[in-house]
């Protein structure tokens, strides 16, 4: 059967996983990755993302379903024969070996000669600017340096697929941001297919070609970062990715690309129906805080206007963050850039706010 394998380099085909025979940690996972893609599995802890990674690496076996790598089922191939590079959360650099020996290890077990080994070690360390540390021990390196070495070790034997299990979790913010950039650069330069696991949504959005949002053992949405943020397909994704205002209500009318929602306090709002299909359905309307406007000059002509009361005005430097009471919801947040022409509010101010109907998405309740 001639299939285009370049689009199906890694495939999860209705994969299930249970540890105790009672609870499914992964429920019916279907995923297919083309070669060279950087895919992130994002989700809260216990959502099944790490289990998926471990099944791909071979440290866990799928209870049901197939995992295929480059067209071949790998369920019965032991981890050491899969040829998948892996970066671990705590780096897992072997403490009794020098950096050079750590990198030489995968080459040595493949029976590679000494001179060839050394050339590859130097090249791999060069990729992460760590050539000078070849004779140090892991304990003599900082967290960021260990991270680079772990990356180099996962790449040194030139695997086509690299898995990363929350590799930046232990680093401080600045270093983390720098490493995010370096990892994506390396992955793209070398054309490696990468599966990256994290619970940090910023990391997921900035690094990935596509993000798979996991919750409750299922992929909730699999989409490029922009789609994920702009067009979440359900409330979980909307809540999990970025900040989000939610207003609960019932669909009153629905007409193709538009619907009206009667909120619980009686206010009527226009929204874009995403996963509501008929009038009378309960829904949760979601609006991003930065899409809410209060400055009349900036409001779009089609904008839907609604009354709000300022509960809190927070100065955050580059932005202002205003907490409002909107349609009975006290946690409604409006966020805008700090600029000369932007208004500043006091607690208790009564204002009118608005947003474009397409920024207001009616999702599942």
């Amino acid at each position, binding site marked *: 059967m001639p299939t285009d394998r370049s689009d199906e380099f890694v495939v999860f085909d209705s994969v299930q996983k249970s540890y105790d025979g009672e609870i499914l940690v992964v429920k019916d996972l279907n995923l297919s990755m083309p070669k060279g893609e950087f895919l992130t599995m994002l989700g809260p802890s216990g959502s099944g993302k790490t289990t998926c990674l471990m099944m791909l*690496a*071979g*440290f866990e076996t799928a209870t049901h379903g197939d995992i295929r790598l480059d067209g071949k089922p790998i369920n019965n191939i*032991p*981890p*050491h*024969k*899969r*040829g*998948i*590079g*892996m970066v*671990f*959360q*705590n780096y*897992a*650099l*072997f*403490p*009794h070996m020098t950096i050079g020996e750590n990198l030489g*290890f*995968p080459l040595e*077990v*493949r029976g590679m000669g000494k001179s060839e080994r050394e050339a590859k070690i130097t090249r791999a360390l060069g990729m992460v600017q760590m050539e000078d540390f070849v004779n140090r021990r892991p304990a003599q390196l900082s967290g960021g340096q260990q991270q680079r070495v772990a990356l180099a*070790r*996962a790449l040194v*034997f030139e695997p086509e697929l690299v*898995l990363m299990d929350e590799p930046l979790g232990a680093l401080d913010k600045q270093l983390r941001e720098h490493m995010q950039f370096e990892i994506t650069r390396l992955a793209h330069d070398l054309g490696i297919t990468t599966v990256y696991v994290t619970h940090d949504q910023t990391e997921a959005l900035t690094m990935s070609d596509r993000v798979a949002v996991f919750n409750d053992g299922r992929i909730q949405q699999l989409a490029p970062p922009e789609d994920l943020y702009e067009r979440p397909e359900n409330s979980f994704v909307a809540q999990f990715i970025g900040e989000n205002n939610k207003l609960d209500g019932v669909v009153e009318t629905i007409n193709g690309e538009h619907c009206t929602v009667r909120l619980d306090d009686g206010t009527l709002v226009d929204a874009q129906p995403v996963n509501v299909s008929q009038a009378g359905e309960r829904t949760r309307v979601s609006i991003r805080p930065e899409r809410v406007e209060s400055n009349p000059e900036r409001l779009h002509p089609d904008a839907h206007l609604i009354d709000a009361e300022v509960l809190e005005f927070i100065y955050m430097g580059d932005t202002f963050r205003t907490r409002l009471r909107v349609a009975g919801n006290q946690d409604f947040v409006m966020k805008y850039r700090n600029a000369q022409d932007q208004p500043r509010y006091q607690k208790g101010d009564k204002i009118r706010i608005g947003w474009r109907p397409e920024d207001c998405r009616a999702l599942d309740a």
Partner: protein
Amino acid sequence: MMSTQATDHDERSMDARGGEPLKRSLARALRRQKIRALLLIAPLLAFIVLGFLMPIGSMLFRSVENPQITDILPRTVVALADWDADSNELPSEAVYTALVSDLRIAIEERTAMTMARRMNYEMAGFTTMVRRASRPLRRLDDDATGPFRELMIEAHDDWGDVATWRALKAYSSPYTVGYYLSAVDYTMVSGEIEPLPDNRSIHLMLFWRTAWMSGLICFLTLLLGYPVAFLLANVKERYANLLLIMVLLPFWTSLLVRTSAWKVLLQEQGVINQLLVWIGLVADDNRLAMINNKFGVIVAMTHILLPFMILPLYSVMKTVPPSYVRAAKSLGANDWTAFWRVYFPQSVPGIGAGAILVFIMAVGYYITPELVGGPSGMFISNRIAHQWNVSGNWGLVGALGTILLVAVLVLYWVYDKIVGIDNVKLG
């Protein structure tokens, strides 16, 4: 005057609130803490000083102390100083006169036999010589004059033997290396240091046997304990707890009971022999000798010391993150390579701790070799106990004990050089 002012100024600049120098108020604030800390450790400190350091000091002292000859035969020792031990001639009449007057006082004060026993450790038969001589000496008048040489030789022939006098002269100093010499199977009874005849040499052989058997026991506990510790560290917690209890169970059973249990199992009419005879593997009249020999000691001690190997191994293995082995496998290592190249090196500190613990405990083991060892399974500690209880030769006990102590310290030092004591983890 200037300097005082400067000091005053300095102190004032460091004043605490009440106008008191900061250092002094800090010291006062800490004093209570220090006193309390000292009080807390005081009982144990006193106990260690009295029960541990003092006995060791006394042991060291007893191993070189040799007052019996100089105290009891002072005139003889002085008189013997002029005698040439290499001359092959008996000492002069003056020496015999001194001996007779020393012995008469010693017999009066009932110290003669103390001296005789001391010499008897080095030269068998000395007590008999003194006992024989004491009878004519007691009958002697207070103002009796010589010649005494004939009198002594008549009492016992050996008083006319040059060897006797050489021995007396050799061991007449108040401090001696004599005990250490006999602890390593040497003697200076003839005035020269020379090895003891083979039929009296036992200590070096016992030291060597103690060392190699302890090493073997240590190796066997490692061989048996490593897989158990590995299992303990890698199974689910509830199974690990159950297993741990099974490992610790022997700890809660008396050492004597466990050793006796091995006696029941291993003796000629014991469980194992009966079973083998019943199966027909062993003839009834040719039962295996598994007790009162080295085999019994090795089996029983390996069993008894096993927890001391397992526990440090376990505590170290528990700290090895499973991600190391996973990383090794993801890098292409098969199970064995991942274990040998990555896991095993991480567990070496545990092996080090277990090995040193088991070896040092084994070297000093007494009760098990005593109960199941027999003559061929005897350890140096059994010999020390024998010298203490039966011969009462405390000097030799001290010397043997000191050698054992020094040997363990040297081993510890060598071990530190090779393994590095910082690499040893007990948990």
